[in-house]
């Protein structure tokens, strides 16, 4: 039994979240044109400004598509996506204006409970409010009333459009405009739901807000949009989790997340992404093409992204921070794992505009099997960003000799007072390390898991407690079979 076998074996355990739920779906025909956009907007009973915005986005996207302007710069490979072969709206049938959980399809509730997510407030851990998004729509949001006491709004995006159109109109697209990139334009045109959170001035959100995204239907894309606004001096911590059934076809997930932090506000955004990664031969899996960006609009504001990316066939994702306010802080902590034939091209952008702005980037890439893992990060210091500072650390860990790790840092400095630090390392899990731990009594699996958890420690400690434990487990499960 050699080490590379040991490592190979640990990395291939079955995907546990791959079940399919039988529900009646209200789905529109496959394909995408202006009528599709109108149909989605009608189904959601949207005000005119939404339809106008969607149509502008669609026309922009269509022009990019005609010009074959789908981005090609990422270090990923996939066959062309047939955008006419996708269903853009699929929702479990449910009563309109449902008042309580009793009116949600029990099959859908059952699906969430299988995933370990109870939507019943009494059964949930106090301290975490959940918005549950199933295919194209939000099926339930918990603890809304309790949050409302503090003035915090937490609801599905659709509900926000109906009940808080002014806030939506003010902030939608203000961080990620529909013209930002190919997938952001597509999302703006067809997005069907997502989460909305608003924390008023001076309020510290009393519980973790979270959204659990589940793709269920076949041939369906999930296009959700999340918007979080925290007013002066407010604080919010938001978590998201994602899973999907095992299917042989690739499915597209193109989300957009926008965060806005005003003066002295803080937003902490954590992701544990576990979309179906495809099988051992690289068939199937989710294409996770996501645009996430936060804007530190106010002075002394702070936005912190933490992500643990273990799923998806392809991940293309760069959670970024625009540091506009003076003394604002942007952080990015990332663990990305690619096993079997998974590909990840992920990193961040830190755009320093305000004075004395500070950013920290800690990126950990783990590659096993035939996985290809790319860190791509941009740090930009604009002319007015006097006293800006950035610290970047990116570390790659290779397991076995069939995988790859790549690093593409872009640094652009237009103000001489900036201070930049960049550290990078690449290492392999050595047979000597595994033997050392086994000699003390740990199994090969425990040894590899311990080495990897140590490697990821700087990122895990940024996650909320409950999530950190989940993330550690997920990582060892995702690697199971890569060590033998």
């Amino acid at each position, binding site marked *: 039994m*050699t080490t590379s076998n040991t490592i190979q074996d640990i990395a291939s355990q079955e995907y546990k979240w791959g079940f399919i739920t039988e529900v009646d779906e209200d789905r529109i025909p496959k394909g995408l044109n202006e009528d599709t956009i109108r149909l989605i907007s009608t189904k959601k009973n949207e005000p005119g400004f939404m339809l106008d915005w969607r149509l502008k986005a669609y026309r922009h996207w269509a022009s990019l598509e005609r010009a074959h302007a789908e981005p090609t710069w990422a270090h990923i490979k996939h066959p062309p996506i047939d955008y006419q072969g996708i269903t853009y709206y699929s929702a479990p049938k449910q009563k309109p204006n449902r008042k309580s959980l009793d009116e949600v399809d029990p099959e859908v509730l059952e699906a969430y409970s299988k995933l370990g997510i109870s939507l019943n407030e009494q059964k949930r851990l106090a301290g975490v409010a959940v918005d549950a998004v199933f295919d194209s729509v939000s099926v339930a949001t918990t603890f809304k009333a309790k949050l409302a006491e503090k003035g915090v709004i937490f609801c599905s995006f659709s509900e926000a459009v109906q009940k808080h159109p002014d806030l939506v109109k003010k902030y939608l697209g203000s961080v990620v405009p529909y013209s930002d990139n190919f997938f952001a334009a597509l999302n703006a045109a067809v997005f069907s739901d997502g989460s909305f959170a608003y924390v008023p001035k001076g309020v510290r959100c009393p519980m973790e807000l979270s959204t659990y995204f589940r793709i269920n239907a076949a041939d369906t894309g999930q296009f959700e949009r999340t918007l979080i606004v925290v007013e002066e001096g407010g604080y919010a911590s938001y978590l998201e989790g994602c899973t999907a059934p095992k299917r042989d076809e690739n499915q597209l997930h193109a989300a957009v997340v926008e965060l806005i932090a005003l003066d002295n506000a803080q937003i902490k955004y954590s992701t544990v992404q576990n979309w179906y990664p495809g099988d051992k031969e690289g068939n199937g899996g989710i294409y996770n093409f996501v645009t996430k960006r936060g804007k530190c609009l106010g002075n002394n504001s702070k936005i912190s992204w933490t992500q643990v990316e273990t799923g998806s066939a392809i991940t293309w994702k760069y959670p970024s921070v625009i540091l506009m306010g003076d003394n604002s802080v942007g952080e990015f902590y990332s663990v990305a794992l690619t096993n079997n034939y998974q590909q990840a091209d992920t990193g961040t952008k830190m755009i320093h505009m305000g004075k004395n702005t500070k950013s920290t980037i800690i990126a950990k890439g783990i590659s096993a099997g035939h996985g290809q893992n790319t860190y791509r990060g941009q740090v930009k210091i604009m002319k007015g960003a006097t006293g800006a500072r950035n610290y970047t650390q990116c570390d790659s860990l290779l397991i076995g000799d069939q995988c790859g790790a790549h690093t593409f840092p872009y640094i652009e400095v237009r103000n001489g007072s900036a201070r930049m630090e960049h550290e990078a390392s690449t290492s392999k899990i050595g*047979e000597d390390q595994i033997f050392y731990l086994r*000699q003390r009594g740990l199994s090969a699996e425990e040894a590899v898991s311990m080495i990897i958890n*140590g490697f990821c420690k700087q990122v895990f400690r940024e996650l909320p407690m409950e999530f950190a434990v989940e993330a550690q487990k997920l990582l060892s499960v995702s690697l199971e079979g890569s060590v033998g």
Partner: protein
Amino acid sequence: MNMLEIRNLHARIDNQEILKGIDLAIPAGEVHAIMGPNGSGKSTLAHVLARRESYEVAEGQVLFQGKDLLAMKPEEAACEGLFMAFQYPVEVAGISNAYFLRAALNAQRKYRGEDPLDAIDFLPILKAKMELLEMDERFQGRSVNEGFSGGEKKRNEIVQMAVLEPRLAVLDETDSGLDIDALKIVARGVNAMRSPDRSIVLITHYQRLLDYIVPDYVHVLANGRIIRSGGPELALELENKGYGWIAPALAGAQ
């Protein structure tokens, strides 16, 4: 019953035969030193006993407390009570010494059917052992061997041994790279572990260690075989006369 019984052990690495028929019996409670020039097979013997997979056993038998050691995986041998102090201890970034050692101890306790120790029960044990080895408390929280000096790594090995309380400890050149003060501290730690139900194998190049840990027996390993065995005085003779004295072919070898 002997703690360890090695019969006609042949082992190779990369198809090169390193051990060419070792016979050795170590009763419980005894300390045996294995000396020999570079390349004689000392470290190979330690790694074979600890069940490192890259070392292939071609022939022979090894009984550890009466059980077939060669059928065990490294972690099984460890859980049965075999400890190896490494010549070059390995670093594990991001995992604290305390966390690692508690995980190791609990893996061994689980193997024996005992309940795991929580941090509150474990830390006082670790603290006592670290005091014995004169290691600062801060080492508990530092990543395993990361940024440790050579001497600190060796002392950390003995701390681990003291916490895990093995039945058989194989110390692979634990004295190399130690100054005289550190050597005395390590020796004190090892001597504190001597007991009637524990055996210790000291693998060393130099006699110096044996001034502080006095062995019951000394064996000389050369070219993959034990060519002479004797009491502690054999080590002194070797120190004075060199290995060439017992094996003329090795004249000049260190």
